[in-house]
């Protein structure tokens, strides 16, 4: 939701009430702290404040004799006219110094007065119900409120002064005049949302602290994760991953309970069969035994044991038939007598018995060898062990497991009757090869198991260390996270507030520029704001000539004359100083018509009169142009004139200004009083020059009235200027005045009684003594009457 302009801590305090709890808590903490830092606020909210009077001494060009001006403390336009070197800017800067709590303007001048080093400045302000003297001296500025007492200048006042800058010096206009691209300097402070920027800064600091706290967990967490990975404990890993990077206190307690269970358990080793070795000598012995057995077997025909058994049965047989055969010596098989078959059978039986005994004798070592050979084969491999080996993910494992199966099967098939030397060698060779592979695999398994055991022992400590570290910084991280969201919120507030502040200013800048350049084909088409919340702000502007945009870049300013640059500066300044939120009812401008032609003076006069309806506008200027333009617009300003009086004690005199011509006569009268006048040169020269100056007073009065009537008659400044250019002599000017007075409905001027005086003044203006010296007083008196008559005829109803 869009937020209104947040300019004060009170505004912020109201805005943060709508924030979520965690953000609101941090924002409230910052607001409370910053409010305390800005000091006691005596309150300026019951504005607007006006300036009642100001008095300055011992400051820049104003010496011991104070310059005091009474300004009225009410809306309206006051024009303070002072010639160069009178102390006009010193007075303005002194007023500014007090109003700004000692913030000197960037004028670059020496602030001390050479003749009076003791500074004393008093500016009395009032809002109708309260009256305050802002008293400035070398020690600083104090806020002296009637009926209340003395205090420091309220911070709200000082901040408001910086924001709205109700006093503008020429030295602040000139940088923009010199370099229009520095336009943003005028609006920079108006757009610098100090309260929100301090809130953002404080929030950023808390956010950064949270980030630093989080960063401190990186190493403990990295160690914890390494230990966790080494253990391969899936339950613990899942539990750790589930709690995130910054576990809550409950989550941390849960993890600690898991660690308590972990500490009693030791991981079981993988179910692998034992390693085996092959004795090469024994294999050779087995091979030889098998060869011996083969050799013995080669001598025994197949079925010898049966034959021997038959023979033994036959020899042992009894009965009549067998006895007959023995007695008759007849072969029981073929019946052939006389074959001595009993002896031969007995001998054969003995031979066979011996042979069979040798075979049996050769089998016994082979049978033992078969058992040994079986021990040299790989042991049986359980499915779990095979899976454990596969789990190592070593290359060629599947081929080795197949080899293992085949060797094991071959070992299981070993038998003394079928064993061959070849089979022995094959089995032994394969087994040696597999044993070497298995040796490496077992080492890997053991290493990993050892690491797991070690990690299991370390993971508890690492997780506890991580959790301890989290406990120490959890609050900071939580605050940092909340502050990050708060910073985003404040960032948005700043953008919104800047828009709320800037858009009306932008519109006013464009309007005032248009009004101050009504006769120009150069238009200010847009004023924009560049840069982000944390980046330097820059105010940009776009110009167009006859509707054609002026190209960007530094060359853009080249199209602006000095007067137009001055107008641009004022167009940027006035909206800033007159924002509706300003507590100041006054506006002080020092020499705002610098480099202005008559058109722009007229336009500015209109703008100032408009402002004077709501503000106490005080303009310091060095000539009467602005006053004339304001009078031409039928507005009667308060007119104050500062005059520096020469002498041993030079001082500045303040007086309510007369009409320009009358003022010149008054000045002349002040200079030429009494005996001093008598001492000036010859009487003729003295009188002639005096009368010539009287004519200047008459002509000044006439031209002033011509300009005023010209505006009132609807003539443009250029028409007035042109007509004044044509009326070169005093008589021609008087004729023009008379005509325009008639056009304005004034009675015709009757100058007959002044003709001789006018002639005398004209003679004097050309170096001729018009008559007897004794008549000089008469001419001067008549001159005063003439000027008074002109003003009365034209200005008074």
């Amino acid at each position, binding site marked *: 939701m869009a937020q209104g302009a947040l300019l004060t801590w009170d505004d912020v305090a109201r805005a943060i009430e709508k924030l979520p709890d965690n953000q609101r808590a941090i924002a409230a903490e910052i607001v409370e702290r910053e409010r305390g830092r800005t000091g006691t606020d005596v309150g300026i909210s019951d504005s607007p404040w006006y300036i009642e009077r100001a008095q300055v001494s011992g400051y820049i060009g104003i010496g011991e004799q104070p310059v005091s001006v009474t300004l009225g403390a009410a809306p309206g336009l006051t024009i303070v006219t002072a010639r160069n070197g009178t102390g006009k800017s010193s007075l303005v800067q002194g007023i500014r110094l007090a109003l700004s709590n000692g913030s000197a303007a960037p004028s670059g001048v020496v602030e001390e007065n050479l003749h009076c080093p003791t500074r004393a400045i008093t500016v009395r302000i009032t809002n109708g119900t309260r009256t305050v003297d802002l008293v400035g001296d070398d020690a600083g500025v104090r806020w002296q409120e009637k009926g209340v007492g003395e205090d420091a200048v309220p911070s709200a006042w000082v901040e408001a002064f910086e924001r709205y800058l109700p006093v503008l010096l020429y030295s602040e206009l000139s940088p923009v005049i010199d370099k229009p691209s520095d336009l943003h300097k005028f609006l920079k402070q108006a757009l610098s949302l100090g309260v929100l920027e301090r809130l953002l800064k404080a929030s950023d600091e808390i956010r950064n602290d949270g980030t630093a706290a989080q960063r401190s967990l990186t190493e403990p967490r990295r160690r914890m994760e390494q230990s966790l990975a080494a253990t391969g404990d899936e339950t613990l890993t899942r539990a750790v991953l589930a709690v995130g990077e910054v576990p809550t206190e409950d989550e941390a307690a849960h993890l600690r309970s898991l660690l308590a269970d972990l500490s009693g358990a030791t991981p079981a080793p993988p179910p692998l069969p034992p390693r085996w070795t092959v004795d090469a000598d024994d294999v050779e012995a087995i091979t030889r035994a098998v060869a011996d057995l083969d050799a013995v077997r080669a001598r025994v025909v197949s079925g010898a044991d049966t034959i021997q058994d038959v023979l033994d049965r036959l020899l042992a047989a009894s009965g009549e038939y067998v006895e007959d055969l023995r007695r008759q010596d007849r072969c029981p098989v073929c019946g052939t007598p006389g074959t001595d078959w009993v002896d031969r059978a007995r001998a054969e039986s003995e031979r066979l018995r011996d042979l069979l005994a040798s075979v049996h004798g050769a089998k016994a070592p082979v049978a033992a060898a078969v058992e040994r050979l079986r021990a040299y084969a790989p042991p049986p491999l359980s499915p779990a062990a095979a899976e454990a080996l596969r789990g190592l993910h070593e290359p060629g494992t599947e081929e080795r497991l197949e080899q293992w199966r085949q060797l094991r099967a071959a070992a299981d098939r070993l038998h003394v009757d079928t064993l061959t030397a070849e089979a022995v060698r094959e089995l032994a060779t394969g087994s040696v090869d597999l044993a070497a592979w298995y040796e490496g695999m077992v080492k890997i398994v053991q290493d990993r198991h050892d690491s797991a055991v070690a990690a299991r022992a370390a993971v508890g400590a690492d997780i506890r260390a991580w959790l301890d570290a989290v406990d120490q910084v959890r609050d900071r991280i939580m605050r940092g996270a909340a502050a990050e969201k708060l910073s985003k919120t404040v960032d948005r507030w700043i953008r919104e507030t800047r828009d709320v502040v800037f858009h009306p200013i932008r519109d006013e800048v464009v309007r005032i520029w248009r009004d101050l350049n009504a006769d120009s084909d150069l238009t200010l088409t847009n004023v924009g704001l560049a840069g982000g919340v944390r980046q330097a702000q820059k105010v940009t502007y776009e110009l167009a000539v006859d509707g054609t945009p002026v190209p960007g870049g530094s060359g853009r300013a080249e199209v602006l004359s000095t007067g137009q640059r001055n107008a641009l500066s004022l167009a940027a300044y006035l909206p800033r100083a007159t924002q509706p939120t300003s507590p100041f009812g006054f506006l002080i401008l020092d020499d705002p018509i610098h480099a202005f032609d008559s058109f722009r003076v007229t336009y500015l006069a209109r703008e100032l009169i408009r402002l004077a309806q709501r503000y106490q506008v005080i303009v310091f200027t060095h000539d009467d142009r602005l006053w004339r333009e304001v009078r031409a617009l039928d507005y009667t300003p308060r007119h104050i004139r500062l005059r520096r009086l020469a002498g041993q004690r030079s001082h500045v005199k303040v007086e309510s200004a007369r009409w320009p011509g009358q003022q010149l006569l008054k000045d002349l009268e002040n200079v030429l009083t009494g005996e001093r006048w008598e001492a000036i040169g*010859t009487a003729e020269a003295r009188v002639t020059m005096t009368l010539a100056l009287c004519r*200047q007073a008459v002509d000044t009065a006439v031209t002033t009235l011509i300009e005023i009537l010209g505006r009132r008659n609807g003539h443009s400044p250029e028409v007035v200027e042109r007509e004044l250019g044509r009326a070169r002599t005093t008589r021609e000017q008087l004729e023009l005045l008379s005509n325009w007075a008639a056009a304005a409905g004034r009675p015709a001027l009757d100058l007959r009684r002044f003709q001789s005086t006018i002639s005398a003044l004209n003679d004097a203006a*050309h170096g*001729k*003594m*018009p008559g007897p010296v004794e008549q000089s007083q008469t001419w001067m008196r008549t001159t005063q009457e003439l000027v008074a008559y002109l003003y009365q005829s034209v200005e008074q109803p």
Partner: protein
Amino acid sequence: MSARRRVPVDEFAAAYAAWPGTEHDKTTLKALLLRYRIEAVAARIPSTVVIAAGTTRVPQRLMLAVGEPGLDDGQRVRRLRIVRAAVAAYHAICDVLHGRDPEARPALARVTDWEQAVARLEEEFPAHGRTP
């Protein structure tokens, strides 16, 4: 003492010097003195150039002096430059003294510039001991 007597410029200069105030305070008076001096020069333009006597139509009289017989091209260019500067100063001074210049009391720097232009004009048209 006769009426409408032209007062010598020297007397004006002396009166200016005795006038109260600093040179900053007396810039209007100095402008008046300079006008007297310009008109004095205009009044003594050789009769070979301007027949009518007096101080009327001062700028025209001065400009006519540029065409004075006997000047070579170089002298004429130089005189033109001097006269132009003096005429410009004269117009500016008249604006002040006739109230057309918003600065009734001109800045000293301006007056100093005018005075230099007038001094060069006086050098160009020396008095030769004559009092206009």
